[in-house]
């Protein structure tokens, strides 16, 4: 199971990465495996506000509809339209081309509260 070292993780299986001024957000490979085949993806529009821990969208697999939770507060700066129209592609590269949104973080918002790769590894090893 891939859990890249340089990313930070939410217990709800989103990853976050600081890219210059923006924070890129996606879902982990483990989440993709749990969800199985992805059918629909509902993402916010550019300019919408996100708050930490609140839902910013929904992802639907053949099993269930799940909320996507924002790891940090901020404003949506970019949306990956390619994934929104073909969410099955997320599975091919969840940490790369399968990113979902980029956020301009609110003043003072950091990634420090999120899990490290090692902590997230422990969580999924426990089967959560």
């Amino acid at each position, binding site marked *: 199971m891939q859990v890249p070292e340089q990313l930070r993780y939410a217990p709800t299986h989103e990853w976050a990465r600081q890219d210059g001024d923006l924070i890129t957000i996606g879902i982990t490979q483990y989440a993709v495996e749990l969800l199985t*085949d*992805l*059918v629909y993806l509902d993402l916010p529009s550019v300019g919408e506000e996100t708050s930490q821990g609140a839902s910013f969208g929904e992802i639907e697999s*053949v*099993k*269930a*509809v799940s909320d996507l939770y924002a790891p940090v507060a901020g404003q949506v700066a970019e949306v990956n339209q390619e994934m929104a129209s073909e969410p099955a592609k997320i599975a091919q590269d969840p940490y790369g081309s399968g990113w979902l949104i980029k956020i301009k973080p609110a003043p003072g918002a950091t990634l420090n509260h999120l899990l490290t790769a090692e902590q997230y590894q422990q969580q999924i090893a426990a*089967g959560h």
Partner: protein
Amino acid sequence: MDKAQSTELLFELSQPGRRCHRLPESDVPAPAAAELLPRHQLRSTPLPLPEVAESDVIRHYVNLSTRNMCIDTNFYPLGSCTMKYNPKRHERLAGLPGLANLHPLQTDASVQGMLEILYDMQAYLAEIAGLPMVSLQPAAGAQGELSALLVAAAYFKEKGQKRTKVLIPDSAHGTNPASAVIAGFEVITVKSAAGALVDLNDLKAKLDDQAAVFMITNPNTCGIFEKQILDITRMMHERGALVYLDGANMNAILGKSRPGDFGADMMHYNVHKTFTGPHGAGGPGSGPIAVRDFLGPYLPAPLVAKNSDGSFYLDHDRPKSIGRVRSFFGNVGILLRGYFYLRTLGPQGLTEVSEQAVLNANYLLARLKDVYEVPNGPRCMHEFVASAKYLRRDKKISAMDIGKRLLDYGFHAPTVYFPLTVPEALMIEPTETESKETLDRFAETMIRIQNEDPAMLHQAPHTLPISRPDEVRAAREPILKWTPPQHAS
């Protein structure tokens, strides 16, 4: 054998000129269609209806019917759906000419028998609920939820209170938040604590004067009775909010505890679940609602009422009613089956239904709890949730694989991946109508499957005409109608 049976569409079997029946020439002069219909409503080409023989039609439908897994053919432990046996006697009774041949536009005076049955049904459902006012109109559970929320909205509107929020536990059926949104409310999710009960601290933190309704399923979707229910209903009432009971799991508590007695103000029944309306192929359903006295004026109209001379009538004179939610009087055919069920069993029989349903579920739970993880402990109400979380981690066997493999052994799959609070959930509800032998065979099969070769399980089912359909394509590119070949793209 099964795979050799034709399931071609009737359109594909069509041959020009083939007919089921040949009618004699009409001896009534038939005007041309152009004389009867406006020009823009006339087709320029004939409608491509299938032209088939009677034997084609019969084979088509009989062959399709043999592919159906249903309660009449197999054990069907689909959690939260209460797939109990539907007595055939109810079919005969509902088909009596005095019931089946009525027209909904007949006068009240000419349908007194039917009205009496429906009047009594209102009273029985009120008694079981502990809530005095009943509308039989909603056509299914989700419509019952929506209707009750509209009743609540009308009540608050008349009181001049602006309440915008509906609070719903995270283990709720998906219909609860959907109904709340359609009724115009904002949905606030309340977390579950350990033991699958409502996290009272989270509820307290989210409860404010904007709260209109708390929707709760009790026993909940994990098959656990919410033992804090009196605290919860008191908390809501102290804030002036109402409590709605999702009655999907009434099969666990019939005659044992009444929603009105534990503080619910409104609820729906699923007659097609709890009271044996036939429940295959997704319906038809029937979702009557019961409410407290002070909510009665807002119920969908008409209700069945009784005159002082003992005759019955449809009471349309209900000025505060939210209006009709269903044409005519709801799914009366299903209500009739529920009525026959209640009359057959009586209060004592109904109580035994719930006792046996809870016993059967606990028996299965006891047989499976050492093999499958059961996150909510060794006791349950009428259903329980097992988890394939560790099987998935250790052997790559998912809840889906287990469900699919059960089909090979002649069992319908349990509900899988619900409730959302349990990973790899397998939600199992045996109902009261199964024998110990059936429960034993199911338990032994469940135990056998988790020892089978994972690679084989990933391909299951192996014995059915269709194995694993492409669910992504079915969801994204559904083919919902037949297209004549010359028009196909």
